Structures are given as structure tokens and as C-alpha cells.
């Protein structure tokens, strides 16, 4: 090789027309003997986006594969009561800084959104890109209490774990965490146990799997007899995952295939997993749409309680009250309905004026559908 290869050159083939056509044809060849179409759930919101943006969704439908979106959008599955509790705090107490990811500020609740909220004197809401940025705010503003309000899956949780441990070792007393931290495998199991949605197999998330590894999904094949494949985020990555899933169905041999081996290993990132286990413990968390799921959320362990915003500020979580607008985000998250089946979709609910979190987040199925689907489908 005479010069250094760039990532753009290496990955061009993962998006090329030729590769896509080749893989679609291979899937078609595998699906033909089955004499039926398949419903495959893509768990991750970034996969939903790739499928729409690249135009794969209708092509797959023609091939006999119906893709169903899953719960893989942390902003979407975080119930309103997390937002309402933090809104109550920042509007009533002085010198509170709520630091959160951008799309979290736009989630509408009965108490408005963090974006429309007017904080108490000396308090404010800041958008950050990483938990470490929130920590930096705490270092620079010793007279304020900085709360990092973070939603995330296994991909994001190690970064949050590292940040809290760092704050502890620095003795940073004005920093705390309101975590909405969710685990993917228990959510998959809850969907399977509910039996509400018929699925023939899964495309597992790419970067969640970079942390938890291929091993985390073995129960799906062993206990539920369903096939699945871990896939990357390029269009060809998803098709490669689907080819594996369809092949597993045709051969009657469900397993967990890893079709994102350039990034994901069998055991994942051990260092990150250790750090998560050191800082957090699982508990029965309540997901929007899916309800309470055993061991599906993480919270700080007892020894780190001084960094737990819920304890520190005695935040009150009022669960169980339905969203007034009639938003059907919960059913979208379970794969029960398509966004277009919600009566609010593209009528009163649109990206400039979202009525639910699925229209807020860049990983939300409603926003993605709105952005990339043809105008004809919009009502």
C-alpha cells in the first residue's frame, strides 16, 4: 500500500448500490423457500434511522421482510415523571443547574418541557454532549448544585459510571446524577414474554453490543428459540444481519450471530462492564410503554448515594398518570403500531411541535418516519 487508507474509503462499500443489491438478492434467495414474509424487530433507534434514510424499508418489504421498530430510544422510553420531577426542582429551587442531552429538553409532559420551563432565580438548564461536560460545570460553579439528567442504554452508562466515580475521587460535592439508565436484554425479554407482538427474529443493537457483547442475547435463542444478529449501522451491515437471521430461520437453527465483528466481541468491553457493575445495581424500572420490568434499570449503589439526585433532593416520582394528549408512543415502542397509525401523527404532532418523545428524539420512530417517509403516507 502506498498511502494510508481512510475510513471513508474502507466504508464506501458498506453503502454502495452494488453491495445493497447483492445483499437484497441473497436475502431473497434465502427467504423464497419459506413461502412467507417475515417480521424482524430492529431494537435500536439508530438502525431505524439507517433503514429509513437509506430507503431500505420499502425494498425489504418487497423482498418479504417487514421491519418493526423496537424500544431502542432512551429518550423515548424514559417516562414523563422523570422530567416532571426535575422540572419541579429547577422551577422551585435556587442555584440548581440541570445538565442534560439536547433532545431530553424537548420532551413534552403535563408540566411542559425543560425547554419551556422557567427556572427559579439563579437556576438554569444547560445542554451538554457528555456527562463529563456536566461534571466540568460543577467544578466551575462551586456555588451551584449541578445535576446531570442522563438517559441512556449500556452504550452510555459506562461513561456516566466513570464520571460519577471521578466526582467521588475528586470530592466534588455539588455534582449528582438523575439517571434514566436502561438495559436492553431485559426489555427484549419483556417484549417476548408479553406475547403482544409477533416477531420472527431480532437485529440487535451495534454499540450496546460493543459494551455487553454477543453473549448477552443467548437467552433469546435458547429460551425463546428466536434467531438474531448483531449489526452495524451502515445499510450493508443491517442487510448482512438480516441475511443471517433469514438463514437461521430457513435452517431452523436460531442463534446469536455477530455480523458487526469489526466492533463487537463475544464478551464486549470488559473494562466498561466492570465499571458499570462497580457503580450501579439493577432494579425494577418502569419504561414508557413497556411498564415495570424486573432488573431493567440501573441505579447507583448504596456507597455512591451522595451522588444520587433522587435522594439528595428528595425528588418525587409520580408514576401511572397517562399522557393527556393521547400520544401512542408507548405502543410504537413495543412494535405494536407504526407511527402513522397514531391519530396525532403529522396532524397535531410534528417535529416543530412534538406531543410525545417518539417525535422528539433523533432515534424516535415517529420523527424518523416523519423525516424520511413519503408525503403520500402522511395524513
Amino acid at each position, binding site marked *: 500500500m502506498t498511502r494510508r487508507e481512510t*475510513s471513508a474509503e474502507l466504508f464506501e*462499500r458498506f453503502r454502495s448500490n452494488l*453491495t445493497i443489491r447483492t445483499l437484497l438478492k441473497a436475502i431473497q434467495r434465502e427467504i423464497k423457500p419459506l413461502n412467507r414474509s417475515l417480521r424482524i424487530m430492529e431494537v435500536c433507534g439508530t438502525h431505524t434511522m439507517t433503514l429509513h434514510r437509506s430507503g431500505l424499508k420499502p425494498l425489504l418489504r418487497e423482498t418479504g421482510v417487514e421491519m418493526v421498530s423496537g424500544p431502542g430510544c432512551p429518550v423515548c422510553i424514559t417516562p414523563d415523571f422523570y422530567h416532571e420531577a426535575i422540572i419541579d426542582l429547577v422551577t422551585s429551587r435556587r442555584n440548581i443547574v440541570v445538565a442534560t442531552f439536547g433532545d431530553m429538553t424537548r420532551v413534552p409532559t403535563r408540566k411542559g418541557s425543560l425547554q419551556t420551563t422557567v427556572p427559579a432565580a439563579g437556576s438554569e438548564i444547560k445542554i451538554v*454532549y457528555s*456527562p463529563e461536560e456536566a461534571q466540568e460545570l460543577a467544578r466551575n460553579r462551586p456555588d451551584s448544585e449541578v445535576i446531570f439528567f442522563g438517559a*441512556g442504554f449500556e452504550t452510555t452508562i459506562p461513561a456516566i459510571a466513570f464520571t460519577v466515580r471521578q466526582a467521588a475521587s475528586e470530592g466534588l460535592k455539588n455534582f449528582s446524577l438523575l439517571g434514566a439508565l436502561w438495559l436492553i436484554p431485559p426489555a427484549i425479554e419483556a417484549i417476548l414474554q408479553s406475547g403482544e407482538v409477533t416477531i420472527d427474529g431480532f437485529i440487535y443493537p451495534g454499540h450496546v453490543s460493543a459494551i455487553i457483547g454477543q453473549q448477552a442475547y443467548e437467552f433469546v435463542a435458547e429460551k425463546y428459540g428466536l434467531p438474531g444478529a448483531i449489526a452495524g449501522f451502515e445499510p*450493508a451491515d443491517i442487510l448482512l444481519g438480516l441475511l443471517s437471521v433469514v438463514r437461521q430461520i430457513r435452517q431452523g437453527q436460531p442463534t446469536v450471530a455477530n455480523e458487526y465483528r469489526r466492533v463487537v466481541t463475544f464478551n464486549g468491553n470488559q473494562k*466498561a462492564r466492570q*465499571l458499570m457493575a462497580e457503580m450501579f445495581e439493577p432494579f425494577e424500572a418502569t419504561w414508557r410503554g413497556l411498564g415495570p420490568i424486573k432488573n431493567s434499570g440501573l441505579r447507583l449503589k448504596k456507597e455512591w448515594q451522595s451522588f444520587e439526585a433522587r435522594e439528595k433532593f428528595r425528588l418525587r416520582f409520580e408514576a401511572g398518570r397517562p399522557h393527556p394528549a393521547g400520544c401512542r408512543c408507548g405502543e410504537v415502542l413495543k412494535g405494536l403500531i407504526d407511527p402513522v397509525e397514531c391519530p396525532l401523527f403529522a396532524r397535531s404532532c410534528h417535529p416543530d411541535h412534538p406531543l410525545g418523545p417518539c417525535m422528539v428524539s433523533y432515534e424516535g420512530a415517529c420523527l424518523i418516519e416523519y423525516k424520511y417517509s413519503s408525503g403520500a403516507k402522511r395524513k
Partner: protein
Amino acid sequence: MCLAVPGKIISIEPNGTGKVDYMGTTVVANLSLLPEAKVGDWVIVHAGFAISRLDRQEARRTLRLFKQLEKLNSSD
């Protein structure tokens, strides 16, 4: 939101962070979750942290698989 594109580590600082290049745009990432990372590695960065190293051998293996499928298709 997951960023699919890997970046390349161009320098590592003593404080455990590194500069990661995305085709001309440089970001600072915390490398603490990838203690084995070194300059020249391609990494996946999420929420300010590098979470995985990209295995270029595996990427090329996948590309070879695409080639094989192409041949299989044309022999249909």
C-alpha cells in the same frame, strides 16, 4: 444516537484523553474505557468516551464476503 463512523486516534495525552480525527474534524475523547488504545487505532466514540476499537481485518473480511455474494448472485 450512535455515530457509526469510526475516528482515528492521532494523539494520547497523559490525562487519559486522546485526540480523535474524523476526516479533518478533531474531537477530544476519554480513552479510559479502552486502556489498550494506541495512536493510529480507529475507535468508536460515544458520549465523549471511546468504547470500542475497530478491527480493520474484520472489516476487510466482511468486504470479501460481499464480493463472494456478488459472484454467487451472478452465477444464478
